[in-house]
């Protein structure tokens, strides 16, 4: 147990927590928007895994991390477009299509990875970090929280953008209505299908970006099934946050600490089987669901396709 609390270790732990939290934050914020608009987006795991794969591919072949992120976000959006077409426009069962997309893309990315990289397992160079002036000089907290890749700051800023959208804009109101009372939105002359499509596409872009960050910055490599339930954790975050973006941030950080602890304990050589440590984040989810599950309120029309004139 020596050194568990020394400064370097603590800084590394927190740094890892933020790195682990960012994909969850992006997925959670994305899922929150879909759920607000009445679409339960189970396919988010599939969007993340394709984002991770394309993000890695883009960064690996172009040599630019930013092109990788772009590719990841576009990949996530492409999956979201399929989901929007099938579930929002055609009104097919969101759970069935969501599972199908997740399974299929997990299989497809594993298949493609096998043919491309299974012999070489190439890695990306470590990502550039941007230190925030002054704040980065704080001992322990500085290197842990304020020396990250720019996408991290973008993700945190996005929390406040989302708050602004939900509270102050017409779009936010429309999204809310699309989830709670789609018929009312329709009567007000706003296209429910279009509003929900915007929400699902945004979810796809954010989930894809989250996946790309996970592969490019978090791991520096793409391996099959790399997301390992991160998308599902995003869904849990969105459920528990009850529509509030700030809660998604706190929740993501909490899970980030759990995930980071998992790696930290392994590095510190604490003698515990990895399987037990790997259970931590999911255990944390179950405990949170037991404690706060009752309060997890969801929009009234969640999961129901909207068809004009249908009862």
């Amino acid at each position, binding site marked *: 147990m020596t050194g568990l609390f020394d400064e370097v270790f603590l800084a590394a732990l927190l740094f890892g927590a933020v790195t682990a939290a960012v994909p969850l934050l992006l997925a959670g914020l994305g899922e929150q928007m879909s759920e607000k608009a009445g679409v*339960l987006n*189970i396919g988010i795991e599939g969007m993340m895994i394709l984002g991770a794969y394309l993000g890695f591919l883009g960064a690996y072949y172009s040599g630019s991390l930013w092109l990788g992120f772009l590719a990841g976000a576009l990949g996530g959006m492409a999956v979201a477009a399929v989901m929007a077409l*099938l579930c929002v426009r*055609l*009104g*097919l*069962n969101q*759970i*069935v*299509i969501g*599972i*199908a*997309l997740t*399974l*299929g*893309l*997990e*299989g*497809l990315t*594993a*298949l*493609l990875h*096998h*043919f491309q990289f299974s012999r070489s397992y190439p890695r990306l160079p470590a990502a550039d970090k941007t230190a925030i002036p002054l704040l980065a000089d704080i001992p322990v907290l500085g290197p842990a929280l304020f020396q990250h890749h720019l996408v991290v700051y973008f993700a945190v800023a996005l929390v406040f953008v989302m708050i602004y959208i939900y509270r102050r804009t017409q779009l936010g109101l429309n999204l809310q209505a699309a989830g709670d009372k789609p018929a009312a939105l329709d009567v007000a002359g706003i296209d429910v299908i279009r509003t929900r499509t915007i929400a699902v596409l945004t979810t796809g872009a954010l989930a894809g970006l989250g996946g790309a960050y996970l592969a490019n910055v978090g791991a520096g490599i793409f391996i*099959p099934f790399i997301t390992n*339930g991160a998308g*599902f954790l995003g*869904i*849990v975050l969105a*459920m528990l946050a009850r529509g509030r973006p700030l809660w998604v941030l706190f929740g993501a950080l909490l899970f980030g600490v759990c995930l980071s602890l998992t790696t930290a304990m392994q590095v510190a050589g604490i003698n515990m*089987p990895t*399987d*037990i440590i*790997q*259970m931590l984040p*999911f*255990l944390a*989810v*179950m405990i949170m*669901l*037991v404690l706060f*599950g*009752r309060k*997890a309120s*969801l929009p009234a029309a969640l*999961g*129901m*396709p909207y*068809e004009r004139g249908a009862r």
Partner: protein
Amino acid sequence: MSVETTQTSSTALEPAIPETGKGDLLRRLVMTLGPILAALVIAGCILLAVGVDPLAYYGFVIERGLLSPLGVQQTLTRMAPLLFLAAGLIVAFRAGMWNLGGDGQFLLGAVSAAAAGPFLVQFLPTWLALVCAFLLATAVAMLWSLLPALLRAYQGVNEIITTLMMTFLGTSLANVLVKLAFLDPSTTVPQTRTLPVEDRLPRLFDTTISSGLLLGLVAIIAVHLVMTRTAFGLKLQVVGANPRAAVHSGLGVPTLTIAVFAISAGLAGLAGAVDILGVQGNVRADWNPAYGMAVIPMVFLARMNGFAAIGFVFLLSILSIGGESAARRLGVPHHFTLVLVSIVLITLAIAEYIDHHFIKTRRV
């Protein structure tokens, strides 16, 4: 007796309504085979894209999974756990509960059976030891579903999330149990103690097919009959179709919810036990065939009808056994089966939509 279930949440993929007349049956057949063919073509294009001859791949799958004597026996044996899983999913889905935790329940059932089987055969008659192992596997899997069941029944927490989380936990816990609690000290491979071949479920006649297949068939037919022919099944269907209406008609929805989860998880646990006691004999560390996730689409394709599910499970079994062999010969990882299954699911959902919105309305 049949129940007209109008699901509130979806227009597509409703539970099957019994067919009337020949034309309807033909339409059903076209609407099922058409999407499967389309999916085979699309998946074939993916194979082409990665430089594998799709005809050779499908050829190997059919040859190994269906035509070779040894292969078809393996296919039939593989059906046993899949049938139990499908039976469990039919109960849950018909009652409107999304038990997506099948894999965790399956693995914990498998580990329980693998721990109990070799231990009990030492001082019990084989048949009694096997029965006890089956019962233990069922009980453990049921227990694993209790928390999601309680959360759904009394707190209204979405069971999709909780069962998925429990499946992640269950997979890790199964590994922990194999590595720490039930490790076989006599081998270097981390695995549980092996049930001797002569103590496993008997094989059918002179073949290598495990009698687990019969148990699986009995389970899924029983589930189908219970869901469509009994008052209990009717109650569950009402809960699935409209939970609020179920409350108003005086059904004890929380109790029924817990019962559904227990039955569904218990059957998943049996699936694990039947695979261990009939075929594998032990559980190796990090063993997770992920049958549960692959069976979910089959149950949908069968429109939650037990008899149709037998057919689709047979198909999945061919794909799975044949896919493993084709994977070795052509170097295509078995993940391709996942891709194929998911494309089938999507094409089927689209076909259902077309059926629902164009063909039916034209006839009316």
